[in-house]
């Protein structure tokens, strides 16, 4: 009997990886073209935007919160970035700065209401989700802001940003390098620094953490700012990649990011989570998107199958909890 428990523990501890392996094998067999070096290498690139958001989202969820606003913030900041660029052709760093400030501000706004007025994170970020989407549409006048100033296209800073968003360095796309750098940095911040321990402690037991002298309000405020800041980074990248600021960017991305966290074992109750596991959770979702498209499936089937697999991966994780 005791020996039986070993494989059981192995299965539950590695549930996500096992599902990943099964999904991988399934696509390798059933989706022609899936199992090529080019395609496999493309999965991290295709998932990079969601991974960047999911990284910040992991911290938010560990504090016991949730952030529904990031998809809208991506659109809002992409529009801001494109607007500034279109208006002032020579100020690319200014446009980036403007977008990042706009993102961080929306995070600060949310954090302020959560901390000062005890608005539940679900509600505060739901409000920001519609506000940021509305602002994006307002600033873009319900259209897209095209970055088509020839003066910008020659400008080296802009070329650099665009390169990061679309090109490769020795086989590894810059965007993937950036994404991995953010994941490693924030992953280590969460595991090794005092701030990281405060984040986990806040979600584990807020009262006890407060009593031991930690400014939990500051911690909670910061995680929303970090998350929205990362959304702004994605907004700048999206706008650069597609050469426009579209107020409809990022619709439902917050849900992909939350799914990546949860599949990666982050507890929605707070207090538990790991950014590196979130990375794999997001890669699993990215692999599903990639493989299902490679099979030539229609979008409604992709939605359904994705939902089922996410549920399956989480069920395994829940078994362990009991």
């Amino acid at each position, binding site marked *: *009997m*005791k020996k*039986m*428990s070993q*494989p*059981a*523990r192995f*299965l*539950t501890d590695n*549930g996500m990886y*096992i*599902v990943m392996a*099964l*999904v991988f094998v*399934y696509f390798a067999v*059933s*989706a*022609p*073209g*899936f199992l*090529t070096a080019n*395609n496999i290498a*493309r999965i991290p690139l*295709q998932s990079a*935007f969601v991974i960047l958001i999911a990284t910040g989202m992991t911290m938010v969820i560990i504090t016991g919160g949730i952030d529904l606003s990031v998809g809208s913030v991506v659109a809002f900041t992409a529009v801001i970035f494109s607007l500034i660029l279109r208006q002032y052709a020579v100020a690319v760093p200014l446009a980036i700065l403007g977008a990042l400030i706009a993102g961080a501000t929306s995070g600060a706004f949310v954090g302020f209401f959560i901390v000062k007025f005890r608005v539940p994170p679900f509600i505060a970020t739901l409000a920001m989700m519609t506000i940021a989407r509305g602002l994006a549409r307002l600033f873009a006048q319900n259209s*897209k802001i*095209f970055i*088509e100033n020839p003066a910008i296209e020659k400008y080296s800073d802009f070329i650099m940003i665009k390169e990061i968003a*679309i090109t490769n360095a020795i086989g590894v796309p810059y965007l993937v390098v950036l994404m991995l750098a953010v994941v490693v940095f924030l992953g280590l911040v969460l595991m090794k620094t005092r701030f990281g321990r405060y984040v986990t402690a806040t979600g584990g037991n807020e009262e006890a953490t407060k009593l031991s002298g930690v400014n939990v309000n500051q911690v909670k405020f910061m995680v929303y700012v970090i998350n929205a800041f990362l959304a702004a980074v994605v907004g700048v990248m*999206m706008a650069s*990649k*597609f*050469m*426009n600021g*579209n107020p*409809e*960017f990022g*619709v439902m991305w917050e849900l992909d990011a939350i799914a990546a966290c949860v599949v990666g074992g982050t507890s929605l109750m707070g207090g538990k989570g790991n950014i590196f596991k979130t990375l794999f959770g997001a890669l699993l979702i990215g692999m599903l*998107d*990639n493989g299902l*498209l*490679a*099979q*030539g*499936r*229609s*979008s*409604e*089937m992709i939605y*359904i*199958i994705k939902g*089922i*697999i996410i*549920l*399956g*991966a989480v*069920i*395994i994780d829940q*078994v362990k909890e*009991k």
Partner: protein
Amino acid sequence: MREAKKNGLTKRAALALLVCVAMFAAASCSKKAEEPSAPAEQGKKVIGVSLLKENDDFYKTLKKGLLETGESMGYEMVILSADTDEDKQDKNVDALLLKNPAAVVLCPVNSKGVHAIIKKMDAKGIPVFTADISAEKGGVVSHIASDNYMGGQIAAERMAELVGKGGLVTIIYQPGPESVAARVKGFVDKGSELGLEFVKDAAGQVMQYDGNDDQQKSEERAKTAIAGNPKLAGIFAANDNMAAGAEAAILGSKRTGIVLIGYDAAPMAQKKIDGGGVWKADVMQNPFDIGKITVETIDKHLKGEKVEPVVGVAVGLYDGAK
């Protein structure tokens, strides 16, 4: 006690895994049952498609036209949807390229920025066609879409029947889209030929009221047109949204003898036309034919025949359930 617990854990873990596998298997079976012809035969040439979306009537019918025509001509059709998301269209194309398609059809989410996506096909020498929506830049072999000029002409013919020779008519349009400009030009050209009189502006040019694709604004503009022209007998609105505004203005004016012709024949418009009010007819696109002619054009191109850079698809007239 402990052993019993662990035994339970084993069972639960095994169950969870089983559930996942079963779900995935079920999902893949259901797909096979639904699309038996998917990635079956080798040797068939593949036509890859990335639709703008697949959840509205127009695109559903267009998809049907592509699929039925393609399969009857011996192509393997791989039809994906971008769900009006540029990032998804980019991923769609990555997936399509895995199939080594003989040709790729795009209904671009973003006319201006889609050349970045078209480049991926150009790099592999795969011909690109656009359907319904054109690409502003990038190497496209042929663009297949409704013949909007013909649509305007058809509207003018019906208008002449309704108001008679010498009848005074005017136009509500939207500046910007080429499609709308072509509709208006077709209407004015044919209308002049048939002896319709147009409301003129101060400079003696044919007056076009800017409804800006907005119902409210179109209503105001139509009111202005009606109030300023006691003899007005007909209004042509360049799409259904603007036609709805014009209808409200006609009904509000309490004047009789003003008729309306719209464009698109959306379900709402069809209902109004069926109701037998002032709204007499609508120009109707044939999305099925757009799909069909797209495949036929590709077939010609692949056989080495010359194809036109722009292929117009005939439109019809909806004038009620007569």
